[in-house]
Structures are given as structure tokens and as C-alpha cells.
């Protein structure tokens, strides 16, 4: 079946929906998602969305700009960071008007709380900048944007798995997707295609990411010759629930929670004396891992405690209800009475498909664009997060740049012709599926996936070194081959999730190779990328973005300078 729309949006999280609302003012919009729209992983975001509203205490977009740049370990492009921070206040007010139920101050304004790396006066002290809806901020925004998309007449195609994005002669003409319910292939032809397919934390064994967060579209674009930028920077969130990786929001520390080691020490005092437990995520993650490595994990084990016992129970109940429930259900712990066992968990991909400030996808490090192709949100790298993203800037990124991409699409589709998708493209996709289904024997995806995730976790997580990365790159080859030989027991067309998982595994390994390769290239430590063999930041050699290109010989790397406008790189201290 073939569908014809002015704009095709792939992904129904915050970035895709915000772009869809905008693009729908200029033409017809289809949104395809492999889940139902309200089930996108954006809905799991807990703590908040950043904006210098100044509702609780004085704040300014300039301080937000500074914090984001410093948080990024100066790898973020300052021209786009400035755009995001200056647009933040308008963005939050607009979300409120669209119906987002933000938590309120006693005067009825949007309430704000503290978060890691948010400071006043260029690092002087913590500031309340995070706008929130209890600890369900992502859920609250996701639902409002979905509801408003419906009101705008956006057409949704739920439970459609994208199998290919068609780019020919530098022009994107749409996508080919599998309707899970029927097993039929659908072709979506559009003047403009926006990829907003989210993150890929499922590369790692312990992650806060949803099982659906497998980076399919990034991998498809990588295979299609589009580069991936800054893939070595993968953020570990310091406080994942031990053993499960479920996120415990930074808002818990924002409301007064502190981290303790086995000796009962508030160890962050040693690592970030000014803002302590509210240091940026990369620093807190390394601090926790160092405490554990030096034998100060709780009872000698590999976790530390997040202590909320001294926090007013009313605050826990009103502002952190969701995480209290998680603790009770999964650990049998009441956080008002017992400390929470936590360990860093793979959380957010700073890297992704390179875009300009209006979401246009770049096909090289010099800035050439792919006509008709846009990206926004976690899958994109407009580079506001650099080497380490500050909490609350991911939601802001999705809505600011989702809207901008939607506006750019609005003007593009006025003058753009429709591309075509040749029957041969569809046949190639169909042949790929048939080959998978027709194979008589082979391994099940699950076993290969678990071993792959454990390997990535072991050799390429919070700390890295050359020996591990070189090993990892060697070891990933057989994984790629195993993923190419999977057997699928389910031969049916109806809702074939076994087929889906086999396809997703191929994408995970493809992206794993890009991460490992990029991490081996970067011989310095910066933000989330921490090389034991190169412990210092090296601005002379490495103040630049990594662009990984997939070629027939393997991955090629090229580099692009970081845009520095306002704040010169300095040593990062808190």
C-alpha cells in the first residue's frame, strides 16, 4: 500500500510530535511509530525541562547558555546552544498553553526545582531552573503534544516498523515500513521526511531506556551513507536502580537527596565541592564508579546509596511519587525510610545524525544537506549537548528543535516536488524479510543480544581504554555475522515480533560498531567519554566533532571544528 503525504514524521515522541504539530499548519502530516504514540520513551522522562523562567528565584537564559556549554565539556556548538536557551522560556509557556499540567508554585506559576549543573551567575550556586510535573514530566508533555497533534488532524500510523528510508541522488523521498498487525509493507512518499526516532540505550546491558529504544532509523541512515556525529559520547545517568537500571530522577537530588558510600560519607563533597550531589552526570557517574572501584561500594558491592531519609516526606509524596512507587515495587524500599541502592545506567545518546539548527540532516562534516531529510530529538546531533548533556536539556532540545524542523519543513514543502520510491527499493526490502523468514535454522536473537549488550557494557561504558576498545571492535565482527544468521521460528505475517527483534538486533550491533570505533579514535577524556589511557582533556587536538561514515572498507572518520562564540574552554570545576 502506498501513502502520500506532504510530511512524513518517523517517531511519535516529543520531537516528532512537536514537529508534526508545526508541519501540519502547512500541509498533510503522517506520523509512523513502532509503538502507540503515548508509549514513546519520551514518556519515561521524569525530572524536568529546563528554562530560565525565574519563577522561583532569579535566573537568566545567559546562565543557562553558560551551564549548557560548560556541562557539554565545551564540545557543544555555542551558536545552537544559544538558540536553545534563548528559546526556552517561550517554549515552556507554549507547552503550558497546549495543556501540559506543570506543577505549580503557591501563586499558580510553573514550579521549578534544582537539577545537576544548573547554576546562577556562571557557576556560583545551584538554581531552580527545572520545570516539572511531579516526576512524570515527559509523560505530561508527551500526552499534551499527542492530544494537540490529534486536534491538528495529524494522521497516525501506530505499530509500523520502518525498514528503510529512501535517499537517492541526495534527496529523501520517504520510507518503507512494516505494518505489524498485518505484516504488509507500506510505502510512505513525502516531500519532507523527519526522523525523530529517539535513542538507542539498548546497546548496553544496564540501561534506563525502553526495550524499543534500539536506534533502528539511525542505523538505516548510517547504512545509507549518512554520517553519525559524536557517537563516542553516551551518557550514563548516575542513579539507576541497582540491578534493573530503572531511572531515579536527578530531581531526587534536586529535592535534597544525597549520595553515600559504604562509610556513610557524602563523597560528592570531594569531587565537586561547590555543588556536590548536583554536579553534572558524567562527573557524578565517575565519582560513583571510583568509590566502587576503591572498595567503598555498599558492603563492598557494586552500588552506592541515594539517601532521601532526611527529605520531608510531603516533598517525596508530592514531587517524587513515581520513583517512590518504583522503589517500593521493585526493591521493596520506602525511600522515606531506607536509602536507595543505585548504580550508573546507560541513559542518553549525545551522538546521532548531524543536523543544522533547523533540523536539516547533513551528509558530511562540511555542512552539505540531504534534500528533504530532517532529524530532531535524541537521534539527532545538532550538538547542544556536546560531550555531556545537562539534565532537563533533552526535553528542551526535542521541543525547541522539533518545532524549528517543523517550521523549516513548512517552507520547504511549498517549493519541493515529491520524490518517488522505485518498485526495486520495495523489492529489496521484501527480499530481505523473506530471506530472514525462509532460513531453516539459526540462533535466536535473544541469546546474541544479551551477550552483545554485556560486551558493550564491559568494554565501552563509563571508563574506556585502547586495549578494551580494540578488543571490542574485533569481537563485534562475529556478532555481526551471528546477527546475520539468526533463525526465526515464527513464519507468520501477523504481529511477528520475532522478526522485528531480529531486525532490531542488526541495528544495535551496527550502532555498537559506530560507538566503539568513534571511542577508539578520540584519544582524550571529555564529558561522558573517559579514557583511562588519556585521562586529560586535549583541546588542542580534540576540540572537534567526530563524523563516522560507513563505507565498504569499514568505518571512515572525519572531523568538524566545534563552534565557540561566547565562552572559551576552561577547566571544568564545580
Amino acid at each position, binding site marked *: 500500500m502506498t501513502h502520500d503525504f506532504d510530511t512524513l514524521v518517523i517517531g511519535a515522541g516529543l520531537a516528532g510530535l512537536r514537529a508534526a504539530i508545526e508541519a501540519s499548519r502547512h500541509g498533510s502530516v503522517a506520523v509512523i511509530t513502532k509503538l502507540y504514540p503515548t508509549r514513546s520513551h519520551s514518556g519515561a522522562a521524569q525530572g524536568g525541562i529546563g528554562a530560565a523562567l525565574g519563577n522561583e528565584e532569579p535566573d537568566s537564559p545567559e546562565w543557562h547558555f553558560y551551564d549548557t556549554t560548560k556541562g557539554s565539556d565545551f564540545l557543544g556548538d555555542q551558536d545552537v546552544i544559544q538558540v536553545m536557551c534563548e528559546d526556552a522560556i517561550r517554549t515552556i509557556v507554549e507547552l503550558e498553553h497546549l495543556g501540559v499540567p506543570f506543577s505549580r508554585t503557591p501563586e499558580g506559576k510553573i514550579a521549578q526545582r534544582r537539577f545537576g549543573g544548573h547554576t546562577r551567575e556562571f557557576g556560583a550556586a545551584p538554581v531552580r531552573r527545572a520545570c516539572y510535573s511531579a516526576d512524570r514530566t515527559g509523560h505530561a508533555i508527551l500526552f499534551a503534544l499527542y492530544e494537540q497533534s490529534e486536534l491538528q488532524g495529524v494522521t497516525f500510523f501506530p505499530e509500523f516498523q520502518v525498514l528503510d528510508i529512501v535517499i537517492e541522488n541526495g534527496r529523501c523521498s520517504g520510507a518503507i515500513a512494516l505494518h505489524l498487525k498485518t505484516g504488509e509493507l507500506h510505502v510512505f512518499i513525502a516531500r519532507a521526511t523527519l526522523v525523530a526516532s529517539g535513542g538507542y540505550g539498548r546497546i548496553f546491558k544496564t540501561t534506563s531506556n*525502553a526495550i524499543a529504544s534500539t536506534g533502528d532509523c539511525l542505523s538505516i541512515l548510517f547504512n545509507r551513507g549518512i554520517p553519525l556525529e559524536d557517537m563516542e559520547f553516551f551518557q550514563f545517568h548516575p542513579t539507576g536502580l541497582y540491578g534493573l537500571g530503572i531511572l531515579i530522577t536527578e530531581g531526587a537530588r534536586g529535592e535534597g537527596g544525597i549520595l553515600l558510600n559504604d562509610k556513610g560519607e557524602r563523597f560528592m563533597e570531594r569531587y565537586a565541592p561547590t555543588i556536590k550531589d548536583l554536579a553534572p552526570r558524567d562527573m557524578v557517574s565517575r565519582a560513583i564508579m571510583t568509590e566502587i572501584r576503591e572498595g567503598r561500594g555498599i558492603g563492598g558491592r557494586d552500588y552506592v546509596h541515594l539517601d532521601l531519609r532526611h527529605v520531608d516526606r510531603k516533598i517525596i509524596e508530592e514531587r517524587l511519587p513515581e520513583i517512590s512507587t*518504583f522503589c517500593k515495587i521493585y526493591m521493596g524500599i520506602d525511600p522515606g525510610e531506607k536509602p536507595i541502592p543505585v548504580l550508573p545506567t546507560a541513559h542518553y545518546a549525545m551522538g546521532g545524525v548531524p543536523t543544522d539548527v533547523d533540523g536539516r540532516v547533513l551528509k558530511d562534516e562540511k555542512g552539505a544537506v540531504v534534500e528533504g531529510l530532517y532529524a530532531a530529538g535524541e537521534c539527532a546531533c545538532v550538538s547542544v549537548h556536546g560531550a555531556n548533556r545537562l539534565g532537563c536539556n533533552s526535553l528542551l532540545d526535542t521541543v525547541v528543535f522539533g518545532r524549528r524542523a517543523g517550521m523549516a519543513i513548512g517552507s520547504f514543502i511549498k517549493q519541493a516536488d515529491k520524490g518517488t520510491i522505485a518498485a526495486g527499493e520495495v523489492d529489496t526490502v521484501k527480499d530481505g524479510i523473506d530471506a530472514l523468514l525462509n532460513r531453516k535454522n539459526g540462533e535466536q536473537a535473544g541469546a546474541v543480544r544479551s551477550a552483545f549488550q554485556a560486551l558493550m557494557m564491559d568494554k565501552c561504558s563509563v571508563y574506556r581504554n585502547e586495549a578494551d576498545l580494540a578488543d571490542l571492535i574485533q569481537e563485534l565482527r562475529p556478532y555481526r555475522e551471528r546477527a546475520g544468521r539468526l533463525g526465526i521460528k515464527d513464519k507468520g505475517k501477523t504481529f511477528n515480533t520475532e522478526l522485528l527483534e531480529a531486525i532490531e538486533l542488526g541495528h544495535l550491533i551496527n550502532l555498537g560498531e559506530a560507538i566503539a570505533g568513534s571511542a577508539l579514535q578520540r584519544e582524550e577524556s571529555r564529558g561522558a567519554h573517559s579514557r583511562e589511557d588519556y585521562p586529560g582533556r586535549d583541546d588542542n587536538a580534540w576540540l572537534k566533532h567526530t563524523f563516522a561514515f560507513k563505507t565498504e572498507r569499514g568505518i571512515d572518520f572525519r572531523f568538524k571544528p566545534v563552534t565557540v562564540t561566547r565562552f572559551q574552554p576552561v577547566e571544568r570545576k564545580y
Partner: protein
Amino acid sequence: MTEQYIFRIRRFDPEKDTAPRWDEFRLEMDPAQRVLDGLITIKDESDGSLTFRRSCAHGVCGSCAMKINGRNGLACQTLIKDVPLAGDSTIVLEPLPALPVIKDLVVDMEPFFAKNQEVAPYLINKETPPERERLQSPEDQQKILQSITCIMCGSCTSSCPSFWADKEYLGPSALLKAYRFIFDTRDRAVDERLESVTRLHGLWRCHSVFNCVEVCPKEIDITGHIAKLKRLAVKKKLG
């Protein structure tokens, strides 16, 4: 510490089966693991064709709602030790009731989501917006606080006897959605929405059976919210 459990799962593949069948899988599991972990283990290690939805795995997306030992709930939020076992360590899993089965534990959610569309599930306010946020007091927000936590997993509506009897009935989830906007002080379409929920297959089909409250994974007092809607509807009619 692991124990032996039997996962007894209702299966149905429309391309092979004329009627549902049952499969049993023996699993070694830690009682602190989730029901979803068991399903994933079966899919990864013994039967890749076992079909179920899942995504967030911690109770925020609503994908894995199903019937677990007779009671609707989320497989990712139900620990093995918390499943009321029938004494023989058997965990019976079935698709959500009253919705068409697509395959195994996957039901067609379209009829469920379509109900929401009937109540204009979006904030409507055509007044020129102020420069800054519309003010809303914490007390006013308190009124919608529970209703905004709904994840639309479908557990409530598919456990409702009124919905079983009348497929045109809006059901608890859509009524809760109507409540969420009717009681939001920023919304201006209260009358239209009240009209749509008080029609024949609406509000008055709720007989306060409380099944929805019992199964809601977010512990929302859905019946209580519907009761408030009923009171408002009566008040508006009288006034």
C-alpha cells in the same frame, strides 16, 4: 535464589489456529523478577513465536497490560512473588479481555483508543493566550492530579462489566480522560464534553463496580472521578 514456576499462556495465532490453545513453560526464576522477565526469557530461549507487547519495562508506557492470574495488570510491574499463586506455582497469562485478540497476548487496542476520541481529549481554549503561563493554583491542579497519571494501558476498560455488556460504552478510561479536561481550569469546552459523556452509552452506564479501580496500575480512583463527573452533570442539568 530461584524457584520453579509454570507459565501457562493462552496462545492464538490467526494464521494457524481456529481456537485459542494453552502452552506451558517451566522457568527457574527469582521471585523478585517481573512477570515480563519470564515472558522475555521464554521468547529468547524457548519459543520465539510467543507474542506480547512490551517497551518501558517499569510501568510508565502501558504496553504490556494483560490478564495475570485472572486480574488485569502490567507484566512489567508485577513481580513473580506478588502474583497470587494458586498453590502450584502456576502463573496464568491471558490477553486483556473484551478486546479482539490479534495474536497470543496482543489485543487490538483500536476500539479502546477510539473511545478516547469521542470525548475531545485535548485542552480547548480559544482565548488569546497570555504572554506567560496561564495561572493555576496548586489546589486547582490537585483536582486533576490523579487523572493526568493515566497511561492508557487499557486495564480498566477491559475489566469493566458494563463495557463487556455494551461495546459502545465509553468505558472508564475515556471517562477519566473527559474528567481530566473538564476539571482543568484552563479548558473552555466543558459543556461540549459533558454533552458527549452524558449521552446514551456514556456516564450513566457506569454502575460503580470498582473493577477499574482494583486493576489500575497507577492506583487512580477512576470510579471516584466518574462519580464527580456524574455530580457535575446532574448539577448542570438542574442549573
